[in-house]
């Protein structure tokens, strides 16, 4: 059974969006992700030059725990995406993670474009949910 969890954090590090598939032991994911936030911060602060390059947005594998691999991605407005996947998903390649982040970023931009969305609100957009679900299911089902 493969788990995958996606969290999004605002620039102030409070969660904007939390989603995990398939099972709902989110608490464990939350813990992992919160610890990973430290790593994210570290990486973000380490990047000195202008964040014009998308590669820098993708933080890559933040750190592997015994069970999970945590990937990070930060947007230009310091919104952080964190994806936690099972370590058993060995076939989940970096490219795929990147593409996932890209899609997330796309969807997130759409959400932001919505004038009714106030930055910092939890994301309730159905379209966004749909995309995330599709992505996660696809990822889980592939393997």
């Amino acid at each position, binding site marked *: 059974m493969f788990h995958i969890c996606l969290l999004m954090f605002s620039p102030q590090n*409070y969660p904007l969006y939390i989603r995990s598939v398939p099972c709902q032991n989110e608490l464990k994911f939350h813990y992992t992700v919160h610890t990973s936030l430290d790593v994210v911060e570290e990486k973000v602060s380490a990047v000195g030059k202008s*964040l*014009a*390059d*998308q590669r820098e*947005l993708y933080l890559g594998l933040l750190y592997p725990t015994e069970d999970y691999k945590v990937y990070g991605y930060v*947007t*230009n*407005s310091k*919104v952080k995406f964190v994806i936690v996947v099972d370590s058993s998903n060995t076939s989940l390649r970096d490219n795929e993670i990147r593409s996932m982040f*890209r899609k997330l*970023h*796309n969807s*997130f*931009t*759409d959400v*932001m*474009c*919505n*004038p*009714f*969305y*106030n*930055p*910092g*609100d939890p994301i*309730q*957009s*159905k*379209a966004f949910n749909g995309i995330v679900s599709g992505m996660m299911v696809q990822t889980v089902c592939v393997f």
Partner: protein
Amino acid sequence: MDQESAAASGASLISLTEHEQRYYSGLRALCQADAPGKLSSSKVAELFKASQLPPESLHKVTEVCGAKHLGYFGTAQFYIALKLLAAAQSGLPVRLESVAGNLPLPRFAGLKNEPEMRYAAAPPASDPQGAPVGSVAWNAADRGSFRHLEANTDKKPEPWSPPRSPCGSPPRSPLTYRSYPYSKQRNGVDAQIPYDGKLSSRSIVQPEQHSSPGHYVNKLAAEHPAVAQASSAERLNQPATLSYSDDDPWRITAEQLDYYTNQFKILQPDLGALILGAVAKNFFTKSKLPIPELSHIWELSDVDRDGALTFTEFCIAFHLIVARKNGYPLPESLPLTLQPAPAQHPEERFPDTPESSEPLIVFEDAALRSCQVVKDPNSVARLDPTLASRKQDLQEESLNQDGSVTRLGSSREKPALQLGAFPEKPEPHQDLDPQTRTKTRQRSYSSTSIDDAIKKAEEPPTPPPRPQKTHSRASSLDLNKLFQQGAPGVKSGWLLPPPALPPRPSASQVPHFLKVSEQASQSKVQQPNFADFSHFREEGGGLQEESGVKREEQGLASRFGLSSEDLGSTSQQDVSCTPHGQVPQKPIRRKYHPESQSLETGAPPPPMPFLPPAKTSQKLLSRQKREIQMAIRKNRETNAVLRRLNSELQQQLKVVHQERVTLESQLELLRPLAST
């Protein structure tokens, strides 16, 4: 299929109300025979006998309706026959002409099907109310009456929860005239609801009806028995009705389009331009829909995902809002008929199979032809061909009292085409969907996309004044600098200087600039007048209080304004007030007076200022008005910006409060632990 052609030809001769349609189709289902397209003559005969008309009339009916000629009862003949029966029962002669009028439904005694009986019983009661009211009442019904519909439909066992909350909020008055027969959607879903539920709800509904919406609900309630009773052919229509019911409320009629266009123009005069997100947000927030719903509507309607609404997108959004206010639950994705361009996003709510689309098209054609042939505008307005196209008709009829048949016809053709093409569409839709999505992904993620998005959202309310780079009189003066500070009235004022007596423009900035330019060219002459500036300066200082809006421009601006007025009026006097970049708006209006005074006191009293004291005052007044209007506009803009800022800050404040509360609670929890 025989049935459809028969129905088409038959329906072309007569116009049926939706009520009648349902009833007749139910009856037809009763008499459905072995051969497709033919109704079992024995059952038809039985029905005719049940009508309790004398046999001669029955024969006449058979003859008139054409069944005798054909040898069998096709759908059309059957319908005509039913109509004739109704006519005969009401005492009218059995002739084709009599079917043109509004007739109550034919009554059949001793029918096997109870619901038919009940249905037959109910409609006559409501018919007199409904039939004549029919189209006329649609608009009345539309006007804010859907709360009533809501109340009625609440009683029905709805598979999905109709949104109660939007019903609670009073629809905006401009929106209320738009009717979305809520029950259209209900039809499709309620199709499976057992009779009892419907009938009971219908009986509940009946006493409630005191207007056409109630009647309409009743009709639709009555329709359900017919629908549920349907044969396989009818049942095919039901999933189709699902799609159609989604179709109809989502189609924008011409009337609505006009309204949307007007609203768009109010927000943004140029129809080809975009309404920016913040503007649209403010506008749609007025509809008092909850923000998540508005957010969802935005998501649906902003097809190109650019954070702004084109005219089409605006119409979509507006339409969705109207639908929502009238009680329709928001779709998960954009309904097919509402999509801006062909093949945009797949309609999730179309569980259609190609087979189910077939009968839809058929009925539609029937509707098409029927509505095209019908002459009577009332009957056109109440024309409801069959289950499927009925709903679109209703919507269109209700909004087209003038009976624009052609438009009805053409609009009905559209769903046929759309539905017919639907089976092929989902794939191209899906193909296009990622395409459109990827296309819109041209925005650069590497750069500050989100920040830009936020900034762009915030910028529109107060666009900074744009410097007018091109200046026909650009001379030695730093007009760019002047224009940057001046802005709005520049263009308007620019036209003014040439006349000898310059009409005072609202901002009267350009004359200022012009004056400046003239000044530059005539700097030598200005010497004697140069001293006047001191007077102007004082006057300008005195006038500063007036320009509440442009405080930052006061000193220089007023001076400059005065000098510009001076120039404008005289066209001789040039005061080299080059350093005065700011252009005043308010101080201008008083300038002529000090000007005239100063001019008098100054060097050669120019004739001009005194020339039109009367004209001056008039122009001053107009300019004052313009200035005031501009000031009002600017105030409004700043208000809007501040309001938005306020709301954002409020939300941030809320978040912070919540955090604080959670932290405090955690602290409370930890305190006893710490103490132990």
